[in-house]
């Protein structure tokens, strides 16, 4: 394929894309002369070039379409649905032809008569007439058409120039100029006959005279032009008229000029210019920006070279810094500046308006709305927002997919819309804007939205999540399921309005280029996709970190913050079952050691130095997952040029690329996604984040005195101090065996001793013992060391995860601490610890129903087993509102235990409400609060609480409950 044809194809493809959207736009703004002019010009150029290249099929179709457009432009034809549809059909045929031209290098065989005839009929204002006007009758049409239209004129001029060159004395000398002359002449005729903007043919001749052409030459040229037209079969009469144009002064305006002329942009040309072709180009370039077509490979190479230059510059600057004063300083500074500017400029060449990815969408939406009979308007804003072409390519398909989905499934039928009180026209909005170093693209529609309930259903049937998991999710979280691979099954397509089709592919494509996609939908109101993508992938800002003497680059966009930890004091650094965690402000951050992930050998010397030194935690975020990466050192940030990893290392998920630093050394670029998957491979870390998230929801303000101790596997443990009666230290040698129990003679009784793993303690030596006492019964828990008593807000970060004897883990005094489930041990050691008691309070009456109103998960965990083993049947309400509705729904409770301070209604509000209700007015209600001063107690009683127990002493609750029961019995007896 020759270059000329290649250029034509590239140009035409671009023009066709433009036409697609412009013609649809024309339908909406039929009167816009500028738009019409632009469309006409594009079609005309296609036709003209086809004639030039000898592509008859293309030319004839384009010509017919141009005729229609010409009539529309001249006001002889109104823009109607038929007109637009027919032009679009012609456009499709042109595309087909161009595509096959690109593939085979030639026009395919075939007939276009049908399309052409249809266009002719449209052009002649008919809608359904038979193809009688097919061969254009002679003496019809304008002089322009009779002269053979643009292609004919062009050919005539070509012949004229060739003839002129052969006959003129100066012919050989003028040879190189002739092509330009041919262009200028053809264009000149066109301008004169069609009143398009540009240089009139008369002016072209004036120009020639000004350039020193002799009278003879001009006369010869004129004869040749006449000859040229004649040889093409133009009638003598018309030839004379054409030649007359050559001599018409520039002053007398062309008669044929339609009134539209005035609406065209005024022509500011310089006819005095030496070269006629200059004018031609000026005219052609009018209304367009000056552009140059460059092969993409050239741009890519340029980018690579600039990257190298940037690296070399960085290297030089690094050397410079270590040398201080140097004669190279000034020029280097200049080099630095120029390089930066060059880099920016080259980046600019890769930038393309996002509109390039949108070009096909108006047509797509129009076709779709026709097909399904909906009325849809596509509104596009920010089409000129620019981004890297590599990224542009990656989002083109996802965008098309989303717009199609919105139009196809989102927007309702017109009737449904009207019924729902919405405007008949549905709107799909596509917008793009810059935001920081990112581009935000939003695809939204005002359609029916996506019912969350249906997604839920689908999620459950597809087994993507359990009912319980869904229970804990917000509506928005559930909506994100549409991006799950399992969601795009055939069944999902039909039942959930097809929105799930390939959304996982869309998300993958977006995430592959470092983007984020979110979905929001409100049923009946519409849905909205938000995509956030980086501007460019080629150069990123990265944080340089070191680990065991090896440096790595960590892309800055995933780094949230940096934390420096002094290893010596190591406040906040803990281990849970060997997995390091860090207490960062109010949450536990799972940590990973970069050295471990990368399998770097931890050399002794390095470990020693870093022991005395400090270490750094790079807090990173990947999606919603936050984790810390332990590194030895952190250096500065650098702009790095991302290069692909060698093929033999591409399987290592921890690396996303490689680069050369300013000092010339090669370093690997870490992939936060890869590291994150390495973290979450360990279930503990995942649990930490999950629990951390739920933990945030609960209250943290209640300070509880906790006894912190160490036992068995070393990590700190804690029990609420209120549960511990005494601390003793005893030599275990004095312990005795009593059956399967190890017991100690203590205060005149026998106290069973147990260990943290629930077995009778069989250790030797002096050990601290935590003594739990209830009435005559005692239990000793043998521990290794009592550390401290701490007042700490109790916020369970991790649930016990099924570990018996542990309620969960919390941050106490800056350390991750297991909270010991006392009740568990009490039951372990002495099965009838509670049974003894249970007999006395209720006798043979059976279970009593207790309603526990408590918002703190910790106290619920503490009280429920305690009350249960004490023989109560416990119902739990997490807040006052739930408690009220439970009572209203006919829940029959013998006693209610309620916290005072809760989110929403307080305990006081609760008790007032319950007291006001006939059914619950007499039920004993016990306040269970962390406030314990007499004023609080008085206030509680005033509000209607039967009794008041402080949280510091949960065991007292049992006594109080037992007492209220007895009192109640008395009351009943009295009554």
């Amino acid at each position, binding site marked *: 394929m020759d270059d000329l044809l290649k250029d034509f194809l590239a140009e035409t493809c671009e023009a066709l894309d433009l036409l697609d959207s412009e013609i649809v736009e024309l339908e909406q703004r039929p009167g816009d002369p500028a738009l019409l002019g632009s469309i006409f010009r594009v079609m005309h150029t296609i036709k003209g070039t086809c004639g030039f290249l000898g592509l008859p099929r293309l030319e004839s179709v384009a010509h017919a379409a141009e005729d229609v457009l010409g009539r529309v432009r001249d006001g002889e034809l109104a823009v109607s649905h038929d007109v637009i549809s027919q032009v679009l059909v012609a456009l499709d045929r042109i595309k087909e032809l161009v595509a096959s031209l690109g593939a085979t290098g030639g026009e395919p065989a075939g007939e276009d008569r049908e399309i052409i005839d249809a266009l002719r009929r449209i052009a002649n204002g008919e809608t359904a007439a038979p193809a009688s006007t097919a061969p254009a009758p002679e003496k019809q049409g304008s002089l322009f058409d009779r002269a053979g239209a643009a292609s004919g004129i062009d050919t005539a001029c070509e012949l004229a120039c060739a003839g002129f060159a052969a006959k003129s004395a100066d012919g050989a000398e003028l040879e190189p100029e002739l092509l330009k002359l041919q262009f200028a002449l053809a264009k000149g005729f066109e301008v004169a006959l069609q009143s398009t903007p540009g240089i009139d043919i008369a002016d072209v001749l004036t120009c020639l005279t000004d350039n020193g052409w002799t009278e003879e030459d001009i006369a010869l040229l004129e004869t040749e032009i006449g000859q040229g037209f004649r040889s093409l079969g133009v009638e003598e009469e018309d030839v004379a008229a054409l030649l007359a144009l050559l001599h018409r002064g520039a002053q007398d305006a062309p008669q044929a000029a339609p009134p539209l002329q005035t609406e065209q942009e005024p022509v500011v040309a310089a006819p005095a210019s030496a070269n006629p072709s200059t004018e031609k180009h000026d005219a052609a370039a009018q209304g367009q920006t000056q552009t140059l077509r460059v092969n993409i490979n050239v741009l890519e190479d340029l980018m690579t070279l600039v990257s*190298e230059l940037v*690296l*070399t510059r960085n290297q030089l600057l690094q050397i410079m810094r270590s040398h201080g004063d140097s004669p190279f300083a000034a020029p280097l500074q200049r080099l630095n500046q120029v390089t930066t500017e060059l880099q920016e400029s080259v980046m600019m060449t890769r930038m393309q308006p996002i509109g390039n990815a949108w070009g096909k969408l108006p047509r797509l939406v129009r076709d779709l709305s026709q097909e399904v009979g909906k009325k849809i308007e596509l509104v596009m804003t920010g089409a000129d927002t620019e981004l890297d072409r590599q990224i542009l390519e990656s989002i083109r398909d996802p965008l098309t997919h989303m717009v199609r989905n919105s139009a196809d499934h989102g927007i309702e039928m017109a009737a449904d819309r009207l019924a729902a009180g919405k405007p008949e026209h549905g709107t799909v909005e596509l917008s793009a804007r810059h935001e920081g170093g990112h581009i935000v693209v939003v695809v939204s529609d005002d359609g029916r939205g996506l019912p969350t309930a249906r997604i839920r259903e689908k999620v459950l049937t597809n087994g993507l999540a359990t009912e319980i998991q869904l229970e804990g999710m917000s509506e928005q979280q559930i909506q994100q399921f549409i991006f799950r691979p399992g969601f795009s099954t055939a069944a999902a397509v039909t039942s959930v309005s097809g929105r799930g089709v390939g959304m996982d592919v869309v998300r993958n494509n977006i995430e592959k280029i470092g983007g984020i996609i979110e979905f929001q939908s409100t049923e009946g109101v519409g849905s909205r996709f938000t995509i956030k993508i980086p501007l460019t992938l080629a150069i990123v800002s990265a944080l340089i970190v070191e680990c065991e003497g*090896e*440096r790595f680059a960590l892309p800055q966009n995933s780094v949230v913050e940096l934390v420096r930890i002094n290893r010596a004091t190591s406040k906040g650094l803990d281990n849970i079952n060997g997995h390091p965690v860090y207490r960062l402000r109010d949450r536990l951050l799972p940590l990973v050691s970069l050295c471990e992930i*990368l*399998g*770097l050998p931890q050399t002794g010397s390095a470990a020693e130095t870093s022991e005395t030194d400090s270490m750094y935690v790079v807090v990173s975020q990947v999606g919603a997952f936050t984790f810390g990466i332990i590194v030895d050192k952190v250096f500065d940030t650098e702009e790095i040029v991302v*290069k692909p990893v*060698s*093929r*033999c*290392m*591409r*399987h*290592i998920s*921890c*690396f996303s690329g*490689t*680069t*050369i630093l300013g000092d*010339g*050394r*090669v*370093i*690997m670029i870490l992939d936060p996604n890869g590291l994150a998957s390495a973290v979450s491979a360990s279930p503990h870390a995942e649990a930490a984040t999950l629990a951390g998230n739920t933990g945030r929801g609960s209250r943290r303000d209640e300070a509880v005195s906790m006894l912190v101790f160490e036992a068995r596997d070393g990590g700190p443990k804690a029990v609420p101090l209120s549960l511990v009666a005494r601390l003793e230290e005893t030599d275990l040698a004095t312990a005795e065996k009593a059956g399967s129990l190890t017991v100690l003679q203590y205060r005149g009784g026998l106290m069973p001793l147990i260990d943290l793993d629930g077995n009778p303690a069989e250790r030797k030596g002096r050990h601290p013992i935590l003594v739990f006492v209830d009435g005559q019964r005692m239990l000793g828990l043998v521990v290794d060391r009592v550390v401290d008593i701490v007042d700490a807000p109790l916020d369970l970060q991790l649930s016990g995860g099924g570990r018996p004897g542990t309620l969960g883990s919390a941050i106490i005094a800056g350390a991750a601490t297991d909270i010991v489930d006392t009740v568990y041990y009490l039951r372990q050691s002495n099965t009838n610890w509670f049974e003894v008691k249970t007999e006395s309070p209720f006798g043979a009456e059976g279970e009593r129903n207790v309603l526990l109103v408590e918002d703190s998960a910790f106290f619920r965990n503490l009280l429920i087993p305690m009350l249960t083993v004490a023989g109560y049947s416990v119902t739990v309400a997490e807040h006052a509102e739930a408690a009220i509705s439970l009572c209203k729904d006919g829940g029959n409770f013998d006693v209610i235990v309620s916290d005072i301070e809760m989110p929403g209604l307080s305990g006081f509000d609760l008790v007032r409400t319950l007291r006001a209700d006939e059914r619950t007015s007499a039920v004993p209600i016990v306040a269970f609060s962390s406030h314990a001063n007499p004023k609080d107690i008085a206030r509680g009683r005033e509000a209607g609480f039967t009794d008041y127990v402080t949280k510091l002493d949960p065991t007292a609750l049992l006594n109080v409950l037992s007492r209220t029961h007895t009192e109640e019995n008395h009351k009943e007896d009295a009554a």
Partner: protein
Amino acid sequence: MSTALHRTASTTAAGATTEDYVTMTIGGQSFGIPVLNVRDVLSPQVITRIPLAAPEIAGSLNLRGRIVTAINMRTRLGLPSEGFVERAMAVVVEHDDEPFSLLVDEVGEVLSVPLQRRESVPATLDERWREVSQGIYRLDDRLLLVLSVTSVLGAICAAPIH
């Protein structure tokens, strides 16, 4: 310069049927790579270790702005390589349009040897050696094994696909 002269001399002496090899030693054994396959010969370089990569991959180095993967030839051949990488010479070759540098003990002269003297590798040779050798030349003072760049790198590049 001297190696270049040497080459021309031997080419003229032996006629057209000679092949030129860049010679190198790995663990005391002489190897040769066809001279046209060699892009560059480098003195010991700063090499960045790549964690988690195959053991043969010594790391990456910066060759005038290009990132080149360094292959530890001693490890590739199953030889001990303590302290080897730091003092190794690098022979830069291309494989599938990607540059690699083969780390060797020493790089010698360019030798021109008559093709007809090439013999096949003895079957008793270690599997790892046989796999990367294309043939063997009996020189006056030593044996020269012909190293196949494709075989050396093909296995490394193909292995990690799992």
